[in-house]
């Protein structure tokens, strides 16, 4: 049950991508890891886990791209993947992003841009997920919150993030779509 799907884990940061890929492979899927900016033809999969550019930027302390470009890039990847999924009548898309104090505390303008990006991403998610639902394709967003205040007195592990991703990619998760999940990974 649920085994042997073609899965692509795309972009983002190396360890998290590797652990998610291993987790999906462990569930019996045929997994390909791809760097961000992969050719559209390579997005021919039934499962797409998209690690947002915000993950690499968070590590490198790089200022975010303009929110419009950000959201459009996400939308473009999801659309390409969905096109291939449509043919098989099955698809699981998880968009993984990061949010934290660093993106909002530096200035009011940065906070406004972060809000803009969040609203844009969730808006695109809602609209796109509704359109894809009748085709058997689910689309969900997972946000890793780097703020502190996690009720668990330790940091999260890549495996724990991967577990949520795997759950959302499960064959039986077909009714979980257009949702936004948050995981506080901050050191409490």
């Amino acid at each position, binding site marked *: 049950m649920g085994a042997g799907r073609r899965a692509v884990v795309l972009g983002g940061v190396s360890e998290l991508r*590797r652990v998610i890929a291993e987790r999906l492979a462990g569930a019996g899927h045929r997994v390909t890891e791809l760097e961000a900016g992969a050719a559209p033809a390579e997005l021919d999969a039934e499962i797409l886990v998209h690690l947002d550019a915000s993950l690499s930027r*968070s590590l490198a302390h790089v200022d975010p791209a303009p929110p419009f470009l950000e959201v459009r890039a996400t939308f473009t990847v999801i659309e390409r993947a969905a096109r291939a999924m449509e043919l098989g009548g099955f698809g699981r898309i998880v968009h993984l992003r990061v949010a934290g104090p660093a993106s909002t505390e530096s200035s009011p303008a940065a906070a406004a841009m972060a809000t803009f990006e969040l609203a844009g991403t969730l808006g695109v998610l809602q609209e796109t997920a509704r359109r894809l639902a009748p085709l058997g394709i689910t689309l969900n967003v997972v946000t890793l919150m*780097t703020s502190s205040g996690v009720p668990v007195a*330790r940091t999260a592990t890549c495996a724990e993030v991967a577990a949520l991703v795997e759950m959302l990619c499960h064959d039986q998760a077909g009714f979980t779509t257009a949702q936004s999940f948050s995981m506080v990974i901050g*050191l409490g």
Partner: protein
Amino acid sequence: MDALRTLREELKHLLVTTLRLENVRPEDIGDTEPLFSPEARLGLDSLAALELLSAIEFTYKVRFGDEGLAREHFESISTLATFVASARA
């Protein structure tokens, strides 16, 4: 103690490569330099902790238990090295 020193140097390299820190050289990181506090020069966040932890587990084939992921282990290269050494033992 030499083993611990070697481990500290390895961890500095692992930190720089895993987190793709472009403006930091491994040899510039102090043994006891704070890594994750907000006022730290490196200013790493919990996503960095997540990545680093996974890289350490993969590289040294150690598994950190639930109690092994506490904030104090991430204070500096020195505390990380001590922790990895005890986890390997």
